[in-house]
């Protein structure tokens, strides 16, 4: 264990300097804006999509049902949701192993919303130089107006984000009128404010600090990396020794590399690093430096790609292998889990039976000497249509269900509760507790059957 004295460990945290990312244009910037547009569009519009007369994607907390397009998930289906999350995590690992931090660059909500907030900042405060000047200058009326406009824009956007977020949990088409008439529940109101505040804080104020200090993925993504993973890197072989062309010509010094040390790559970096210092954990692989450097290379009439997407093997003049053990292992596990998920989903029975024993009385002896137990059946119809079901006792002939041949009609998405009596006829039971099985089948499709075991209690054999 190497423990640092307090004053040294403090140095692990560099003092925070505000980063003013310069706007950059180019193919990767276009791709990033497109990705952000699509993802934000999906986020803000999805709750408005109606399907089968309800919200297509709704995590209905009140009814405890999750609607995912045609799929309706009940609390019993919790395993599917967990499975889905594991699948998502594994996909992330797989993509990371092959293509590096694509997630961070194009898809992470932190990146996407930061980009939206930066756009509004540029709109109100101007470009990088203007923003730095504004912050360095005194509090003039203009500064106040620009800052005020920025925060107003941010606030409206954050509020809309919060409302949309709550719209995923309670129907957004009812939420908005309620909000307009101030009849919204206190908790909904709370979550709108909380989520808006979190958006404003994360995308407006914290920004790259979330990636640098808070994101766990940023810390462990390097475990997925190898020599064949796509990274963004500066070609030091080509670039060094760096320096201004003009100066080099004037002093007739040693031949210069392609890097003219214009520091554009540093100015555009949203996390404020210098990519020329090598691969760093702070780099979110957004490729802003690639675009910036490509522009400079074009102007100085040098080939593009001094900073580029490449692999460590390619940098070392070796062949890059996309297909390697890591690809197969991650890909194999991912495929297996996906296949398992699809199968389990296809085999999922839209029907559930719970059996509860009557708590008041263990058993009752009837006049004819037979023993009776009382149970409550809870039948959940997980289909969206109304269905008819038949209840029967499964395994043993000496038990009788009353009412016999019980048939119940359960509306779509509802849970139906009914009380049944089970009677043991004939000889006495061997043991005071015997296993019986309730069997529930859909009337029009007997193959759709679920079973639930219960204990039948009695006095047992009398000596």
């Amino acid at each position: 264990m190497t423990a640092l004295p307090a004053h040294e460990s403090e140095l692990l945290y560099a003092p925070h300097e505000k980063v003013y990312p310069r706007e950059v244009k180019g193919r990767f910037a276009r791709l990033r804006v497109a990705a952000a547009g699509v993802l934000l569009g999906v986020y803000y519009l999805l709750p408005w999509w109606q399907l089968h007369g309800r919200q297509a994607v709704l995590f209905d907390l009140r009814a405890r049902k999750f609607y995912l397009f045609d799929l309706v998930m009940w609390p019993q289906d919790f395993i599917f949701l967990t499975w889905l999350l594991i699948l998502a995590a594994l996909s992330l690992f797989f993509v990371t192993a092959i293509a590096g931090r694509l997630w961070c660059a194009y898809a992470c909500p932190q990146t996407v919303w930061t980009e939206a907030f930066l756009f509004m900042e540029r709109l109100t405060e101007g470009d990088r130089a203007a923003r730095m000047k504004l912050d360095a200058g005194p509090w003039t009326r203009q500064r106040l107006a620009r800052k005020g406009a920025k925060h107003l824009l941010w606030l409206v956007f954050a509020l809309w984000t919060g409302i949309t977020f709550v719209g995923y949990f309670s129907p957004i088409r009812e939420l908005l009128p309620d909000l307009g008439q101030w009849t919204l529940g206190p908790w909904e109101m709370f979550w709108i404010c909380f989520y808006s505040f979190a958006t404003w804080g994360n995308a407006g104020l914290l920004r790259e600090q979330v990636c640098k200090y808070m994101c766990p993925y940023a810390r462990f993504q390097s475990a997925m990396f190898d020599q064949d993973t796509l990274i963004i890197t500066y070609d030091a072989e080509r670039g060094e020794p760096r320096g201004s062309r003009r100066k080099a010509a004037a002093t007739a010094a040693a031949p210069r590399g392609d890097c003219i040390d214009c520091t554009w790559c540093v100015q555009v970096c949203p996390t404020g690093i210098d990519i020329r210092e090598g691969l760093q954990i702070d780099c979110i692989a957004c490729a802003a430096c690639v675009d910036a450097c490509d522009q400079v290379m074009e102007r100085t009439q040098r080939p593009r790609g001094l900073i580029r997407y490449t692999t460590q093997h390619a940098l070392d003049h070796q062949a890059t292998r996309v297909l390697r053990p890591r690809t197969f292992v991650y890909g194999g596990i991912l495929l297996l889990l996906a296949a398992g998920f699809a199968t389990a989903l296809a085999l999922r029975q839209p029907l559930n039976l719970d059996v509860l024993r009557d708590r008041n009385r263990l058993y009752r002896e009837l006049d004819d000497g037979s023993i009776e137990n009382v149970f409550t059946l809870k039948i959940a119809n997980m289909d969206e249509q109304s269905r008819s079901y038949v209840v029967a006792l499964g395994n043993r002939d000496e038990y009788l269900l009353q009412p016999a041949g019980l048939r119940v009609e359960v509306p779509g998405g509802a849970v139906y509760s009914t009380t049944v009596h089970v009677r043991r006829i004939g000889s006495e039971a061997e043991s005071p507790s015997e296993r019986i099985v309730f069997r529930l089948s859909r009337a029009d499709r007997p193959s759709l059957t679920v079973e639930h075991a219960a204990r039948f209690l009695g006095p047992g054999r009398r000596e």
Partner: protein
Amino acid sequence: MAVEPHELSRRARLIGVTVWSSFLAACVGTMVCFAFIAPADLLGDAYEGQRPDHLGVYTLGFFGLWLLAALSSALTLYLNRITNDRAASTRK
């Protein structure tokens, strides 16, 4: 450029780490917990006649778990600091 005071910045980051990691734990915890417990079961008989506010139960559950996880994270950081300080002083 605006440079924030050193000490404050470090403390702010430690708080950030605590809050954030416990937030993630609370998210998972809330999901698992309420997959098995329905708010109606919790409120059940005590609120007879009143409609229980489900969202309130979820919210309090979430923040309760968050607080618990944050306490655990903070305690871990704190104990770790003491351990480090002791290791440093014995090395000297």
